[in-house]
């Protein structure tokens, strides 16, 4: 058994309205929030937006059940606000602007409907409750789009960071170089290892020269990860050459009892490359 919704006279009148000619009233909040100093939209764009919104609201209010938040008409309105939020954020706007616009729009809409119909919707508690429910959901859609956009931005930044943290270059056919600069912590070492192993597999690299000139300090855990990285490279069938180990790092590795017996080291990147060429039978002449 389904409970029948009891609607007040004002709400019934609202749902019976033929909504039209309110686009100009809906433009006002758009001008205030998007055409000010921030210049997120131009006047024509706000006008188009308001016309689209008028048509969406007309569809919602004339739908079979305007209180149904899962109806196609409501979902279309929700998508409109989600897209608007995304558009504003992509243009450098703030989520607060879209939220304030949506809140102001609610009041502008009630005033416009009252003005056009001559019914005092603004003084009806049930009409206000209905619109508050609808607009709260729309604000949620705005926040949803904002969070999604933020998530995309963070993912893009992480991907960029990953790319710059692992500048693997194929310097010669089958020879990869990996200069490591900055602090080498466990998560970064794992990141570097993943990228390096995948690159070896992709390029069929026979030798990898890892240059630690830019690494100033190393701890026990990281040195173990480094050894693990070299071991994984060797397991894939490539040679690993470590270059540019600072005296402080050499001392730290000794005091940490790290076994470098099966690892080839060279003083500098150029020595490492020479060793890689010798192993591959390549002669470079001046």
């Amino acid at each position, binding site marked *: 058994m389904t409970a029948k919704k009891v609607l007040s006279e004002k709400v019934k009148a609202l749902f019976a309205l033929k909504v039209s000619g309110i686009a100009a009233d809906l433009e006002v909040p758009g001008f205030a929030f998007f055409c000010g100093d921030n210049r997120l939209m131009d006047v024509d764009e706000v006008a188009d937006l308001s016309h689209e919104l008028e048509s969406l609201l007309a569809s919602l209010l004339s739908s079979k059940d305007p209180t149904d938040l899962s109806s196609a008409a409501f979902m279309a309105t929700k998508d409109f606000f989600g897209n608007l939020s995304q558009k504003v954020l992509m243009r450098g706007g703030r989520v607060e602007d879209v939220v304030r616009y949506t809140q102001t729009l609610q009041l502008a809409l009630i005033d416009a409907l009252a003005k056009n119909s001559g019914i005092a919707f603004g003084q009806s508690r049930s009409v206000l409750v209905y619109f508050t429910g609808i607009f709260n959901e729309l604000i949620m859609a705005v926040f949803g789009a904002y969070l999604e956009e933020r998530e995309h931005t963070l993912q893009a930044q992480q991907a960029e960071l990953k790319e710059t943290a692992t500048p693997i270059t194929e310097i010669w056919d089958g020879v990869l170089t990996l200069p490591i600069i900055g602090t080498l912590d466990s998560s970064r070492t794992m990141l570097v*290892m*993943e990228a390096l*192993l*995948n690159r*070896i*597999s992709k390029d*069929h*690299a*026979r030798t990898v020269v890892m240059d630690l000139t830019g690494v100033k300090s190393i701890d026990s855990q990281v040195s173990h990860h480094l050894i*693990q*990285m070299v*071991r*994984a*490279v*060797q*397991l*894939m*069938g*490539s040679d690993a050459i470590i270059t540019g180990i600072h005296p402080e790092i050499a001392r730290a590795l000794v005091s940490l009892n790290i076994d470098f017996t*099966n690892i080839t080291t060279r003083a500098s990147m150029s020595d490492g490359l020479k060793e890689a060429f010798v192993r591959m039978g390549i002669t470079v002449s001046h």
Partner: protein
Amino acid sequence: MSIPGLHLTQIGHGDFLLDPSKSLNIRDRDSLIERVTAHLLQARAARLYYDLSDLALIDPLYYAWLDALARAARVVNVTMICIGMQPSAAFALSKFMSGKPAFQTALAIDGWHK
């Protein structure tokens, strides 16, 4: 030659390729090692290439099998070379392995050099 779970093919003078299939039962490793080494001895093999390209992960049990096979091959004067190890398998293996493995590694058959 086909041993249950393993395909052993001669690919050149003294070179053999060992291709494991999904039906390989490494719990039966003693019998498998005996059959492989018997064939290598008979064929006067020098190198045994073990193809790992279809293996996404190597666990300690599988590593023990590879280690035992490599050591057995060395006893009959055959060098075992694991080829085509996937990045995920190399990563997993490097985490629990300590020291040098009993087998050698190469990217592919033609990538191995003494």
